[in-house]
């Protein structure tokens, strides 16, 4: 009986730490995007906002999800270095008109062609802590120590992905993922963290959906 109550309580607490994720998609058509064997795509983070940068860890996470489907993904830094300084925060094209103008420079165009990059996937967004509550305090004394109390915080991850085709300088699709969840830290002698995987969920959803742009697998 006690065991059943314990399992029920654990399931209730852990399910409270889940994240709610929604994804919006826009594509002119649902056909799979063409990608030849010698072509690749690169996932780039927007870094021109004042108060946040699209973090590299998230970009690597999405890139890993794509590579799982045998889609060749060039590492972000490798592409940025190969084309330096035209994809730095100051110089990176923010729109297709600017990209088209940039690619009119034969040196830049040939360098991009040499890299074999067909699609640019721009990721823009961040994960933020919105609200925090509760309090927890820890103390250590000779031979004894522990944490007591309870803390909670709410996290929100909002990311947008835009796919540009370098063959005809057009936008091929857009995705937006919103993920939110509450994490808890319970101090019952030892601190017990119950973390909501907000960023991981956002990455999984975005990666999975983006993969569908380039493959026919479900």
């Amino acid at each position, binding site marked *: 009986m006690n065991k059943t109550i314990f399992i029920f309580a654990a399931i209730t607490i852990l399910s409270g730490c889940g994240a709610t994720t929604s994804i919006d998609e826009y594509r002119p058509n649902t056909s799979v995007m063409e990608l030849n064997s010698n072509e690749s795509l690169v996932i780039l*983070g927007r*870094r021109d906002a004042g*108060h*946040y*940068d*699209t*973090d*590299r860890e998230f970009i690597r996470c999405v890139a890993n999800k794509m590579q799982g489907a045998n889609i060749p993904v060039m590492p972000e830094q490798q592409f940025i*270095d*190969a*084309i*330096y*300084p*035209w994809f*730095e*925060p*100051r*110089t990176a094209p923010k729109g297709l008109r600017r990209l088209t103008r940039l690619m009119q*420079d034969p*040196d*830049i165009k040939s*360098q991009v062609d040499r890299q074999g990059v067909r699609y640019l996937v721009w990721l823009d967004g961040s994960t933020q802590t919105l609200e925090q509550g509760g309090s927890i305090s820890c103390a*250590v004394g*000779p*031979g004894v120590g522990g944490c007591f109390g309870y803390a909670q915080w709410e996290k929100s991850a909002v990311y947008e992905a835009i796919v540009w085709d370098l063959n005809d300088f057009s936008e091929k699709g857009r995705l937006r993922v919103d993920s939110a969840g509450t994490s808890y830290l319970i101090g019952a002698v030892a601190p017990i963290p119950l973390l909501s995987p907000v960023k991981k969920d956002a990455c999984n959803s975005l990666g999975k959906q983006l993969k569908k742009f380039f493959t026919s697998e479900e």
Partner: protein
Amino acid sequence: MQITKIQLIASVFALLAITGCSSTAQVQVAERQFPTVVSKPKAVSAAIIFDKQFRDYVATPNKNTSIEIGAAQTTMLSNAFKGLFSDIEILSSKDQVSLDNALVITPSVREVQVSTPSDTYLNVYEVWIKYNLDIENSQGDVIDSWFMPAYGKTPDSFMLSKTNAIEEAAVIALRDAGAKLLLDFYRIPSIYNWMLRERQLGAEQ
């Protein structure tokens, strides 16, 4: 005996915690991290003077922070200048200039500023490097003194030591300096006018 052991462990922990919170940072920016530029240089000659002070520059944005950027900024700006001029010499003093009808450019650092999350309450470290480019012709006449600010910030400060974070932000600022130079140098009105004059003189001869 047991209490002594616990006290020792507690002292070590306290010491580690206090050292971890130390606010001094001595940063050395490695010079290997800079890519070459993708740019077709214009048919302009230039002598770039990186004097000893510039090559060995150590910025002290505040009393707790020092950043060795001399070697890195010399490499970075050398790369960027090579993308601007077809004929270039990189020298350590003006009396070594051998090119005729060339621009003589002496970069210097005006100021370096650093901001940390404890200053701004933002989750980023930021570095500003303010350069000055003194530009003369090969006769020693002043063409311009161009102010060139560069900026870099870390994506976030999570799990980064202050030293690593400032180095990362400084590297991004140096890359930004290269980008700014390539993007804006030929937009400086006095440089544009100098090029027009040189072209006219060339056509007349």
